[in-house]
Every structure is written in C-alpha cells, then in structure tokens.
C-alpha cells in the first residue's frame, strides 16, 4: 500500500509521465524549484516589455508600430499566464513582485541589455524570442500541469514574434547602407547574450539534475543552445548578416555548428548586477509600481464601497 504523500510515489508518477496538479502532493524541493523557475520566466516577460516598449513611439511605420504593440501585449500576457501558474503553487503575486524588486528573484539576463537602434527590435524578436522558443517548445512537456498549459499557450503565440524580428532584419539588410550597418551592429551586440540565455554549460549548472529528474526541464542547456545555433546561423547567412565569431564552422559530419568559447565572465557579471541596464530595469519597475499604488487602492476602495452598498440594499 503506497503512501500517496511519499516522495517515492511522487517520483513514480513523474517517471510514468503523469502531470502534477496544484493540489497534488509534491516534495518541497519540487515546489520551490518550480516557483523559482516559473517566476523567473514571468519576470523576464514583464521586464522584456521595457527594451521593446522603448521603441513603440519611434517605430518607423504604422504597420511596424501595430506589430510591436501586439508583440509587447503578448509578452505582458505571457508574464500573466506564468504569474497565474506560479500562484497555483501557493505564492501570491504581491510576493512575486516583492522578490523581483528586492533582487531575490532573477529575470533573464538578456533584458539587461539596451535596445539602441531600430534593428535591436529586430534582433530581439529574431534572436531573443528565437532562443526562448527553443526553450519553450521543450517546456510544453514539463511535469507541472499549470506550467505546461501556460507553455502550450505561450508557444502558440510566440512564433509570430520571431518572424516579426526576422522580417525587420531582412528588410534592413535589403535596405540602405545605413540600415545594413544598424542591423549588423544589432547582430554584433545581441548574438552572444542570446547564446547565454540558455544558461551555463551543463557541467556548470547547479539546478539541472533535479530539474531533469523531476521532468521540469526536458532537455539540457547545451542541447537547447545547440538547437538554437543550428537553426539561426543559416537564417543570418541567408540575409547577409555576419556572425560576430571569427572561429565558427559547420561540422559536416554531425550537421552541427561549432562556435568559439562563450565569454562566461560577461554572463556572470551581468547576472551579478553589472549589466548595462540592470539598475534601470528594476528601478523602472519599482517606480511605476509605487506610482500605481494609489490607483490599486482606489480600485479596492471602490469595490468595497459597492459591496457594502449591495449589502445595504439587499
């Protein structure tokens, strides 16, 4: 007779490919890992609205403006789906936000880079969302039900994001010399940070083995990074963008690209808070959160008055 509340029973459910739902028994480590991973993903979506939001008012065509607005709405929406999934694990959104603002919770380091020219919007869509898609497709099969369902929803919406970015890069590479220069400049600045989005090499990743055992994570950092590199380099070459790497090559036998070593110093430096935009991103979030307090309070006060009125007239 098994104890439904045992870690052994839980692990056998995982091994059988079952989904875990919010009221099911789960080891504390599993719950904590998920809260950390889901909330980090959610925070990334929300923070990501900043570098992209930076260019809406300067978007150079009405079509581009609408597409960018729709994309950012999606990012915000994804943040919301993920906050919802995290909340099923017993943490409130108030606490999630506090953790983001205090620095206790992280967000993807890629958003600590600035969006400096219009081509950056292309690079973000093509490379950053492209990298996210590789990760997210894999996560659709994650063991936690609410997270898996959020990921299925997100994946449906994500593919237009990558196309939006690639279309911008393509147009610019087929445009004037100035546009080509801007596109190459964006490529030079976003390529390596996008590769770092997949996290440290498998050998250096502390949380990986639990995540794989619990089927939270379905593929390793390096496996996902390789997928991204293999699909993206041909896309870059097709439109004439130069990979900012003097030593990459295609291994004809395996069909995989080999790249130069990643500069992990930069990765750890940015994670530690010294990226170009770390302070700015969090300060922005805190500022508008604080400025919004009177509005949220008003909404609550109004609701309370009206519930009171309903009770009085009942």
């Amino acid at each position, binding site marked *: 007779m098994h104890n439904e509340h045992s870690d052994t029973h839980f692990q056998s459910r995982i091994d059988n490919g079952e989904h875990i739902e919010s009221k*099911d028994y789960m080891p504390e480590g599993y719950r904590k890992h998920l809260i950390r991973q889901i909330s980090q993903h959610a925070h990334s979506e929300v923070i990501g609205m900043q570098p992209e939001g930076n260019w809406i008012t300067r978007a150079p065509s009405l079509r581009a403006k609408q597409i960018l607005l729709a994309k950012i709405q999606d990012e915000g929406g994804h943040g*919301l*789906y993920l906050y919802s999934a995290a909340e099923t694990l017993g943490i409130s*959104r108030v606490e999630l936000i506090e953790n983001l603002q205090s620095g206790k919770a992280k967000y993807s380091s890629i958003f600590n880079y600035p969006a400096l020219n219009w081509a950056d919007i292309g690079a973000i869509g093509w490379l950053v969302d492209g990298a996210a898609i590789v990760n997210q497709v894999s996560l659709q099969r994650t063991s936690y039900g609410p997270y898996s369902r959020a990921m299925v*929803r997100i994946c449906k919406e994500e593919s237009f994001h990558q196309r939006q970015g690639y279309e911008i890069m393509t147009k610019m590479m087929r445009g004037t010399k100035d546009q080509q220069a801007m596109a190459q400049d964006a490529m030079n600045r976003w390529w390596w940070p996008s590769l770092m989005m997949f996290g440290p090499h498998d050998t250096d990743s502390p949380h990986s083995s639990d995540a794989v055992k619990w089927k939270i994570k379905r593929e390793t950092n390096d496996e996902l990074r390789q997928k991204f590199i293999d699909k993206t380099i041909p896309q870059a070459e097709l439109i004439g963008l130069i990979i900012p790497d003097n030593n990459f090559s295609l291994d004809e036998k395996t069909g995989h690209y080999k790249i130069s070593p990643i500069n992990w110093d930069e990765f750890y430096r940015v994670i530690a808070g010294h990226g170009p935009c770390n302070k700015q991103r969090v300060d922005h979030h805190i500022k508008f959160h604080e400025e919004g307090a009177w509005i*949220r309070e008003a909404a609550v006060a109004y*609701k309370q008055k009206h519930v009171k009125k309903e009770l009085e007239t009942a």
Partner: protein
Amino acid sequence: MATDTQLDLWEVFIQSKSGLPYIHAGSIHASDNKMAIQNARDIYTRRGEGTSIWVLPSKHIVASNPDDNDMLFDPSNDKVYRHPTFYVMPEGAKNI
C-alpha cells in the same frame, strides 16, 4: 488607509463557440466584476479564442482533494454496464 495589493485573483473560463463547454484558460487579477471581464477579455481572447467569458474569484472554487481520488473515481471504473459497448446486440439490429 487601504493596504496596497495586486487586487484579487480570479479564474477565467472561455467558451470558444456557443454550444461548446466553458474551458478553464487561467487566472487574472481584478477588483470588481467589470474589470475581471475586461481583463479576461484582454488577456485570454486576443486571437478570437472566445465568444463568451465566465470569471469568478478563485476563493470561490471548490476543488476535489486528490487524496480522495480512489474514493471518488475508482468505483466508476468497474461499472462497465454504464457503457454501451457492454451490451450484445443481435445482428442486424438498427437504430440502437
């Protein structure tokens, strides 16, 4: 003095076409009924996913306890006579 919150948590159910069931889509935060409907619409129906929305405060959802799964759901597993395939029909019988 009100304390600052992220408002209340609501669950969202969307009906994609009339006649079909309402399916749970996820959750949103809102303070009152109107805001909940609007937020649900803005978050969960941007791609024409729905023609009708139900929202309710999450605290009103009552869920079955997984520990009771065997008591709640196993007994129905061995009542095969509830399924039409259990019955043997004479050959040639129509409309049954």
